[in-house]
């Protein structure tokens, strides 16, 4: 039984994503602020939310991921406010899918989705080697 966590790079990747999204939304608000005064309030809220995500929520969320590969199932624990435990028996798993964005590729990371009938589990980015080993361990690849 091995327990895996997500790498620090995944946190950095999500921080960059959230930061870029925040910048985009901020820019949209600034563009409209001469027409709609309330856009300033929206921009402030977005700014505070982005800061909250970057420095409080994301580190805890990424650290909350505990992936345990057991004899017949994979157990994934995650969550900050709402904690969840996913158990997916290997017998029910149909296939695995990896998902790589250009930024993630640059950092050597890839996200993994485990697909079973009527359900799927998304795992945030892990290193390519970890993803390969993980898929190998759960029997999705030879």
């Amino acid at each position, binding site marked *: 039984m091995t327990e895996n966590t997500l790498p620090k790079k995944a946190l950095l990747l999500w921080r960059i994503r959230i930061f870029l999204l925040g910048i985009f939304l901020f820019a949209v608000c600034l563009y409209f602020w001469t027409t709609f005064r309330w856009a300033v309030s929206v921009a402030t809220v977005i700014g505070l939310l982005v800061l909250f995500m970057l420095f409080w929520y994301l580190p805890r969320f990424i650290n909350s991921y505990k992936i345990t590969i057991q004899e017949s199932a994979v157990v994934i624990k995650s969550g900050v406010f709402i904690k969840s435990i996913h158990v997916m028996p290997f017998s029910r798993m149909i*296939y695995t*899918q990896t*998902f*790589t964005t250009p930024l993630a590729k640059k950092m050597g990371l890839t996200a993994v989705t485990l697909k079973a*009938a*009527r359900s799927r589990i998304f795992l945030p980015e892990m290193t390519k080697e970890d993803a390969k080993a993980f*898929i190998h361990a759960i029997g*999705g690849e*030879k």
Partner: protein
Amino acid sequence: MKKVYYAHPLMILMFAKPFLFVLVIPFIRGFLQYITDKRVTSLLGIELFLIITIAIVSVLKSHAFRFIIVDDNITIRKGFLIKTKAKIKLSQISSIQSEQNPLDAVLGAVTYHINTEAGRKNKPDFKFKISLKDSREISSILYGTQPNERVRFSALRVAIMAATTSSAFTGMVIGVPIIKKTGDLLGIALDKMLFDEINNVSNKYADFIPPVVNTVTLILLLSYVVAFLYSFFKYMNFRLFLGEDKTEIRSGLFVRSRLSFRKSSVNNVRIEQTPLMQLLRRYAMKVSVGGYGDSKSESQVVVPADRKSEIFESFNTYFPYLKPKGNEVTPPRSAFTESRFLFWPMVWFLTLTGLATWASIRFVNFGRLILFTAFIALGIILIYARLSIYEYHSCKMQLGKTVSAYSTRWLRTYGLCCVKENVGEIKISRFFRDFDQNTCRVRITVRSEAADSIRIRCLDYKKTLKEIGDAFNVQV
């Protein structure tokens, strides 16, 4: 062994297709307008930019596609900026389907569908275009060579199935978007022209039947014809290949479809009969394959129309669960039980009579229309009543190593057979009359993504509990 397959160039068109009507056609129209009137809209430049962008993205996406087979795994790679890579064990593939439309046939391509039980409902898990040669090679690697045993169904049988299963509603769903899109493409109000023509014909017979009835009847008839033609051409050239573990179904005239699946991927078999099929004493047999299907169910027609005895004779060795095993549970055969089956037809009849009487008094000017509508509704209620009597005589459930159940569903007779292991849920429920009659209703649901289910009414309660307990080794 490693085999790599690439996308057919037609896949570029497949990616760009969703944008054809919103971008390419308006652009062509704008461009033609520029040539004839020397007038150009301000959007033309933006449209051209978007078309070029979409074309480049489609080419790159098509170029990045890979279908790789390594030993007993397949890998599907997609995307050039955002890349996805799916790895599937061959044993987890429930079915594969290839479709070839006339354009594909000319350019030697097929649309290939890979289905598993994990995909999104009503959509294939993976859909792509590859060359015909590659598709044949992939199919033989995934499912072995083509089975020898071949059953061919005549055009007449296919026509019977098309005529008895088509509905005006399906015709509308198919026909209306085609008329709308063709009208948009030609720049004429085709739908209005068609409706005016229908109105003209309707008014010719206005002396006998109300014009609105004529119009509705004509629309329904036209829609039915569209549905019939669609179904007929879809299933024309219907051929069934039965192998030891592989089943292959080929059909279609303009769009040729080929579906392959393992016998072990079949969740259940359905034997159905529409009201028109009941008149002709023919049945259709369908199989439900996990994850397959682009409609609301996972079923595929295996026998378009045949006698029940012939279906059983031909297929009971291939699908052994067609031959029921175990004790039969039926409703008690008594006049009172029969009246229970006729309860809802009677309620509908009384409601219709009351509503029609009230409406003809309240809306005197619409008397003919109300009478006509009431007659149609009465016809449907009579079919329902006849089917309820059939249900009383024929509904049953047999549980053992295999599960088979017969009942009715909507206006169809309906039978479901499967192996015991494929049953997902059995629900027993009891209503007011069930308590004093010591009966129950049972719903059997098959374990699947878009599960089939069957409901059997008025079964003997104690016997049902015993049979379920014995079959599934549970204390009920």
